[in-house]
């Protein structure tokens, strides 16, 4: 009996080359005669371009050409937005190089093409751009008033208003009844600060126009989508474009984009007829790569005096920034389905106003809409508990879906296939020592200890496995949500797996090998996973939304199933047995009741030689499958944070963090652990550290890692992680997805914990990030208002 691969904590295949410097990132690629690009960017957040004088730059040593917006106006098209959330959605044209007007600081106004990166950089300063500054709108609530317009030509800052109403949808009661009849009404406004994805490898693109095809290497999460979109945007036949995502150093949604810089590099290569490379600096990355979050959430929650929630009304202002990127407009809509979370709310209304401002555009960032929604509801459940004087866990238990009630249709219209919130919570409480910490909290309060203790709870679910194509269609998304895979059986019996999922740190090569090794009964080492090149992986929808395993992995399994079906016909022929008498296990077809068998390797070679195949059977075991999920998957979990707040300095420190995640069946526990740790770090970062801050003119103040505080290992605690396993019933493996869980769950756990530590001192809310100065200011304000309860 071979050891099952699925469930085995294998070290990742990918790691040896990544950690020994044998990686090939886009910036490592050097081609003969390659030219280098540098971008001239607008220092103003909103201005009319009156002239661009490139004469000095053009005569600078080493400069080959300079492209301005006017130079490429006819061919650059408008960068794509694939998610027009309403038929009336308004959006400005989005040229890769600004032509007449810039709408955020950092927008590209010209591109230097030179023989060296240094020569390109030197010439940037020689481009003389004249601007007429225009008024800027930066604040979301101000943007909603339309007093200053981010794009005067649109006549409004509102891009779209999108509404879900459970009364109208027939998934619940009207919200008006719930609010009118509320025994308890909790009204709060929460601010989701703007974040920067801050992936480790800056974005980089190399374009080689010299072959039959134009080859584009890019630090992207989405080589397939990028190929299609570049073809549509730039008017290049899709068949003439090959896109390769080589090693990609993180994305977190930040590389789920079709960027101006990618389009410009293609244009530059086309203009010069030579390979061109552009690699952004960290400063450019922070300033001009898309940002995330940036929402104002106005919330009303109605409940009975017993703590039963009767309705939730959400009014969202969502900051698009200056343009609509690939899925900018859809990100808040993804959250719409998650505000009701694990709860049985009878009435729900969600209204989102997508607004333009003069800042870098926002788009997907780890969790994309769902962390914002989860934060809001988990903070509200705590507020309700405080209002009623109940334990926050008790309020949650009173409202959550019990495990007997699955499958459960939520008030937002999703069908949750499985879950067991009681089990995950019970396990978390046990690991956490909830009672012991509550007792310590009481002691510290009693003793007026300068360091107070708080307990933060977050019970969350999310929708993963983006996405059933018909659901995306109903939401006006331009593409489907399927994934493609191919399993190729080589003459030696070695296996090549081609996947449309595009890894940028997830460990697909390892996990897919484990899946296929088990399915086909071949050694793990005999499986090779190929991805990230549209010439090899000819179809795919790439990697985001915790979709790889639940969609891409299922395509791999389906293709492997087809291999077995094909091989079975040949096996029966070779052994002169009936197909019905064959069973496939551990890589062999056996004739039941006999000791006769033939291995997949033997069948592979027989297929290759093709000397003796059944009539009408092609000499080929290779199989394709395209998997379109019928439902999302719904990971859930319970996260508990014990927060120490030093009331003298305002510093909030994580004393203990316990998370129990239920992500269904696990393929590789080590990879899962890594995803959970990284996700937690990013969620904690939102709660305590990170915020993109602009000055009054719209310049990014947090323009380097000196000011944009990404926490490092010394700033984060040792996590206690555990799992419960309630398999998904909507895919053959029972997997649910884990890429975003930690990020979604941890932010409200931390903030609830900070507030729980200082609420008895009169503090009611603290805006994220809960920095020491903000916590201290909140404590001071509570003292001044005599708010001690």
């Amino acid at each position: 009996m071979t050891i099952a691969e699925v469930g085995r904590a294998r070290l990742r295949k990918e790691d040896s080359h990544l950690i020994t410097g044998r990686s090939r990132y886009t910036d490592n690629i050097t081609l003969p005669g390659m030219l280098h690009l540098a971008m001239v960017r607008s220092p103003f957040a909103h201005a009319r371009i009156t002239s661009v004088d490139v004469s000095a730059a053009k005569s600078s040593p080493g400069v080959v050409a300079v492209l301005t917006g006017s130079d490429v106006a006819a061919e650059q098209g408008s960068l794509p937005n694939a998610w027009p959330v309403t038929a009336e959605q308004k959006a400005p044209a989005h040229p890769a190089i600004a032509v007449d007007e810039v709408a955020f600081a950092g927008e590209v106004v010209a591109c230097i093409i030179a023989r060296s990166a240094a020569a390109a950089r030197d010439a940037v300063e020689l481009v003389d751009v004249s601007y007429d500054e225009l008024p800027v709108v930066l604040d979301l609530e101000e943007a909603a008033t339309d007093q200053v317009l981010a794009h005067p030509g649109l006549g409004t800052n509102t891009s779209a208003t999108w509404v879900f109403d459970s009364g109208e949808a027939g998934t619940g009661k009207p919200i008006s009844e719930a609010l009118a009849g509320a025994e308890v009404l909790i009204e709060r406004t929460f601010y989701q600060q703007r974040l920067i994805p801050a992936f480790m490898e800056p974005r980089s693109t190399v374009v080689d126009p010299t072959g039959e095809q134009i080859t584009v290497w890019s630090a992207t999460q989405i080589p397939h989508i990028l190929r299609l979109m570049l073809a549509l945007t730039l008017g290049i036949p899709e068949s003439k474009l090959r896109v390769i995502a080589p090693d990609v150093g993180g994305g977190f949604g930040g590389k789920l984009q079709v960027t101006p810089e990618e389009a410009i590099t293609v244009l530059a290569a086309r203009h010069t007829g030579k390979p061109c490379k552009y690699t952004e600096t960290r400063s450019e990355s922070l300033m001009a790569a898309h940002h995330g979050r940036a929402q104002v959430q106005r919330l009303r929650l109605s409940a009975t005096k017993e703590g039963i929630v009767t309705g939730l009304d959400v009014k969202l202002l969502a900051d698009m920034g200056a343009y609509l990127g690939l899925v900018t407009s859809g990100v808040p809509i993804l959250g719409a389905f998650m505000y009701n979370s694990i709860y049985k709310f009878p009435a729900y209304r969600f209204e989102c106003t997508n607004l333009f401002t003069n800042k870098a555009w926002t788009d997907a960032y780890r969790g994309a809409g769902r962390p914002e929604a989860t934060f809001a509801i988990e903070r509200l459940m705590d507020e309700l508990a405080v209002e009623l004087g109940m334990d926050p866990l008790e309020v949650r238990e009173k409202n959550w879906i019990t495990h007997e009630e699955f499958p459960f249709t939520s008030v937002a219209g999703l069908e949750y296939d499985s879950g067991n919130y009681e089990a995950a919570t019970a396990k978390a409480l046990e690991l956490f020592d909830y009672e012991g910490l509550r007792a310590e909290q009481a002691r510290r309060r009693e003793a007026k200890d300068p360091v107070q203790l708080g307990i933060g709870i977050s019970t969350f679910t999310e929708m993963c496995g983006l996405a059933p194509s018909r659901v995306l269609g109903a939401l006006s998304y331009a593409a489907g949500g399927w994934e493609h895979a191919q399993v190729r059986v080589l003459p030696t019996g070695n296996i090549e797996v081609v996947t449309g999922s595009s890894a940028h740190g997830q460990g697909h090569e390892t996990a897919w090998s484990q899946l296929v090794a088990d399915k086909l009964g071949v050694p793990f080492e005999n499986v090779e996973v190929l991805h990230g090149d549209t010439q090899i992986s000819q179809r795919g929808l790439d990697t985001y939304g915790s979709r790889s395993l639940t969609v891409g992995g299922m395509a791999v399994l389906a293709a492997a199933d087809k291999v077995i079906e094909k091989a079975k016909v040949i096996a029966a022929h070779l052994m002169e047995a009936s197909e019905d008498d064959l069973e496939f296990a551990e890589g062999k077809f056996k004739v039941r009741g006999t000791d006769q068998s033939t291995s997949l390797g033997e069948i592979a070679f027989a297929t290759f030689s093709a000397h003796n195949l059944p009539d009408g059977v092609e000499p080929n075991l290779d199989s394709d499958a395209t998997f379109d999920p019928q439902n999302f998957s719904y990971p859930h979990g319970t996260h508990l944070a014990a927060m120490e707040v030093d009331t003298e300095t305002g510093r909030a420190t994580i004393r203990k963090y316990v998370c129990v995640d239920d992500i269904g069946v696990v393929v590789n526990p080590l990879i899962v652990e890594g995803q959970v740790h990284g996700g937690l770090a990013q969620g904690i970062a939102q709660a305590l550290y990170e915020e993109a801050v602009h000055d009054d003119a719209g310049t990014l103040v947090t323009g380097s890692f000196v000011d944009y505080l990404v926490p490092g290992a010394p700033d984060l605690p040792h996590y206690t992680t555990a799992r419960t396993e309630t398999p998904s019933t909507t895919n053959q493996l029972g997997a649910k997805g884990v890429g975003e869980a930690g990020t979604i769950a941890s932010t409200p756990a931390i903030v609830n914990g900070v507030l729980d530590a200082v609420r008895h001192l009169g503090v009611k809310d603290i805006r994220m990030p809960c920095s020491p100065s903000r916590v201290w200011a909140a404590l001071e304000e509570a003292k001044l208002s005599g708010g001690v309860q």
Partner: protein
Amino acid sequence: MIPSAFDYAAPETLAEALSLLGSAGDDVKLLAGGQSLIPVMKLRLADPSMVIDLGRIAELSGVRDDGDALLIGAMTPHHQVATDPLVAAHVPLLAKAAATVADPQVRHRGTFGGALVHADPAGDLPAPALAAGATFIIAGPGGERRVAAADFFQGYFSTAVGDGEILTHVRVPKYTGWGAHYEKFTRVAQQWSIVAVAAMVRVEGNSIAEARIGLTNMASTPLRATAVEEALAGSPLTLEAITAASAHAAEGSDPASDLNGDAAYRKHLAAVLTKRALVAAAGL
């Protein structure tokens, strides 16, 4: 991240360096460990036409005993200051402060003198140097001059070192037997100090005989918390006395407001951190 083109020289003696400096014009920068200069050049916030690298001048590096003081070469890396036995024995405050600078890589490249001449108000070495009453030895075309710490730091990124001059050594009096602590407050581990307090205490029996306290990032230059020092001289070694004295820490300060906190928060932090630094220094 490509700097503008510049000329580069790496002299091997101080005399050679001074001569190069004298002939290079105004637009010259001295390169010590490069932990501040190189980033600002890469960001093109500085574009000197010439960089003189002091890294090959052996006489500028190292710690040696100089009677009642230690003589620390300007090119001594932070790591060496943090781990040198002479520093640990006689000016432990400096060792403790140097150990908090940035991360191990920076501490192996960055230099004691470089950080002092850079004079970042949030830097961790100026306040301890001030508290310790260090003397700065500066070489110039006319020879050597000595400047007291109180006169050395003149403003944001500005010191008494003039054009054509090089800081060669810092002479730090010995505080053998004193308790010392550097209390640094940051939001993440690798960050400039929001506020930090450098404290040295000489305890006699059950009282504080003498305290010397320097404040980091409470003004454009490092400050002495003189009101606290005066209140503590001869006071009993108790938490109450320390707390009461520390309340005066921010007197005379003028801190900046930024993303990490406004001036009022920094003034509050100065008092809290002074108390904590003193408690740790006195071993309470």
